[in-house]
């Protein structure tokens, strides 16, 4: 059996419509000026845009009907993130989607009320990292016998605007999930991070003394956490791929209009050929991302799905880091300025490449999956 045997890739009519609608929405509602207007605000997003996204049902795409979602399957979120990435649009949708996945996968219908609130536009986020390492257990926050939490989480995405935190914690050493409402946090619990990508927001959060509204225990927790991190990698990859596509068009537009030494600079092969490699990298990422979208499911993720999510993340990061880096360089002196959109692209690239684990994290695990497991070749 070949390593590369599972190459399923498809897009349902419904997903195709979602992609068109989402791209149109981003084009109309979020021109680059609107994105730039949010770079230095506290929340990082436009509340009107968020409301419109909630009304279109995007917060419920990947959750089942039973809890108020659209029941389209988590793969259907991929076209939406592809489109959002294409606009570099900052919103708390990724955080909310991932919080919903973790809660649903660990607690199922026991969390119906909370999941319904996420579908209706409350903002959720997962508080995972104790330190900077995506590859360890990250269960340092403790659920004490008095029913309150103690400890701090770091780099919590969209913490500044979140209504609900899904905190990865431990109860006497066993992993549990603690659902914490913002109102349960102590004053001054949040301390914002200065992120490299100004379209994104994150903060360190001290949960000490907070009393969870719900605790999810049992065997489902570890599995749900593993699958959610893989889905986080896939959806981040989808967003990154959209951004790489946008970055590529900004490069080709410049190469088609800028003249030096009497010639359009796009006619020089020293610029042309690397641009082709950016294009190829972007297409590779797009293939992996939609392959992932095709084979992930609402059930426990299969080995093939795990491979797909990890490959998608690696491919999208590689493509975007190269695209963002070359975008600055190919725009020359202008590329080095704040005014040039390459600034946004290179910052997005550097932010995205670490989210849900960077290349080393995923490639090491891919090596084990592909080269060690029985029947892998």
């Amino acid at each position, binding site marked *: 059996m070949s390593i590369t045997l599972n*190459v399923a890739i498809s897009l349902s009519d419904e997903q195709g419509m979602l992609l068109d609608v989402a791209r149109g929405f981003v084009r109309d509602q979020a021109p680059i000026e609107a994105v730039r207007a949010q770079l230095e605000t506290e929340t990082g997003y436009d509340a009107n845009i968020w409301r419109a996204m909630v009304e279109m049902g995007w917060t419920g795409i990947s959750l089942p009907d039973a809890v108020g979602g659209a029941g389209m399957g988590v793969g259907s979120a991929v076209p939406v993130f592809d489109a959002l990435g294409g606009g570099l649009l900052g919103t708390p949708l990724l955080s909310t989607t991932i919080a919903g996945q973790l809660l649903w996968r660990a607690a199922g219908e026991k969390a119906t009320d909370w999941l319904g609130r996420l579908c209706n536009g409350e903002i959720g986020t997962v508080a995972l990292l104790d330190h900077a390492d995506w590859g360890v257990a990250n269960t340092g926050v403790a659920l004490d016998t008095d029913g309150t939490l103690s400890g701090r989480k770091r780099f919590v995405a969209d913490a500044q605007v979140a209504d609900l935190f899904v905190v990865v914690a431990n109860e006497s050493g066993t992993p549990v999930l603690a659902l914490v409402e913002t109102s349960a946090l102590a004053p001054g619990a949040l301390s914002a991070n200065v992120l490299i990508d100004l379209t994104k927001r994150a903060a360190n959060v001290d949960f000490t003394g907070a009393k969870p509204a719900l605790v999810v225990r049992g065997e489902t927790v570890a599995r749900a956490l593993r699958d959610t991190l893989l889905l986080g990698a896939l959806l981040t990859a989808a967003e990154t791929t959209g951004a790489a596509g946008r970055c590529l068009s900004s490069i080709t537009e410049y190469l088609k209009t800028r003249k030096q030494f009497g010639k359009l600079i796009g006619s020089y092969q020293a610029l*042309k050929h690397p641009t*082709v490699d950016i*294009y190829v990298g972007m*297409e590779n990422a797009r293939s992996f991302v939609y392959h992932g979208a095709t084979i992930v499911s609402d059930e426990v993720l299969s080995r093939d799905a795990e491979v797909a999510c990890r490959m998608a993340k690696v491919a999208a990061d590689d493509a975007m880091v190269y695209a963002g880096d070359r975008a600055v360089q190919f725009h020359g002196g202008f590329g080095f300025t704040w005014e040039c959109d390459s600034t946004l692209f290179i910052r997005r690239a550097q932010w995205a490449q670490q989210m849900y684990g960077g290349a080393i994290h995923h490639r090491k695990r891919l090596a084990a999956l592909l*080269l060690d497991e029985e029947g892998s070749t």
Partner: protein
Amino acid sequence: MTDNKAALKAFREDVSAWMAENVPADPGFLLPLTFLEVGTEQQLDFLREWQHKLWSAGYLGMHWPTEFGGQGADPAYQFVVDRELGRHNAPIIFNTIGLNWVGPLLLDMGTDEEKAKYIKNILSAEEIWCQGFSEPDHGSDLGAVQTRAVKDGDEYVVNGSKIWTTLGNYADHMILLARTNPEAERKYDGLSFFLSPMKVAGIEAHPIRKVTGEYGFNQTFFTDARIPASCLMGEEGGGWSVAMKTLEYERGVTAGQASGHWGVTIQVDDMIDELRALENDGEALLSDPIVRDDLVGFIMEAKALSLSARRMAVPALNTDYPMGLALSVKYRGTEYERRMKQYTASKQGARSALYVGDADAVRGGFWQRAYFSNFGATIGGGTTQVQANIIAEHVLGLPK
């Protein structure tokens, strides 16, 4: 399972059973890795007989019309046959220029007379085809072709020279791009396309030895060679568009090829199987973290190529650059294979330095030979660098 799927599955089982019985055993002499390296009469006779046998069994040209010797089936049936040929390590189907370039071209643009005259003999391997495009001074720059064809009554008189003529010394026919009008305002408008006979006075093919040590290429010399005027394809001066259409088939941009089994199938799994048996520093090579990471990279490239091939059939996932994936198949695939083969050839310790003919060479020097042979793919049909220009200009819209 739909009827269609069930029928394909049954077909695959039939093909597989037939191949188990009929794929010839190792003949005891070296067979070429690709159609570009058929260098001896012994190889030629063996491969001609094998192709004829496959066609006679009804397994070649699956989607070509029955009136010209094909099977009139869906293209999916040819993919099944090609995959089974690979799985059974069958010898290559060598009349590639006929099967994959000339055949689809004639079926697309040829006259009824041309189809009737040539197609069946391409399938049966009774007639072998070669291609006369590149010239010693004009490799990738086809528009600058200098070989002259001058009309004289019901003949053309051809003078000049073509190079890299694969199978040229054995071929019965050549697709020939020649200049009929040196005065044309645009250089492209002075070119004409011929279905030229090869076995006529004044045409000589001289074999060229390659980096692999083998033959297969030729330089073909035309010295006052007289070919019938009836072998002009299309209009005089209309050769450029026919040549470009031919290149679409050659580069896999357009489908219609009769057999994809033109080279020994080498996949990323073969690479890993080979490396798994090797050691470094007294330990399994595959326990080395750098090697492991390199292999993840190769597997991802292989998978990305397969996914792209599938994605081409999903238009909704190709709205930004509709022709992009098709136009980058050759650019990506041939370079990936070159690096994959080089990598495997260089991880064999001191045995990396051995070549075909040494009894100690890993798999008889297969990887070393395959690496060198692969330059036929990264150079032939438009070099990688020309492919990059094509993608830049035709997919991304960058200026010439």
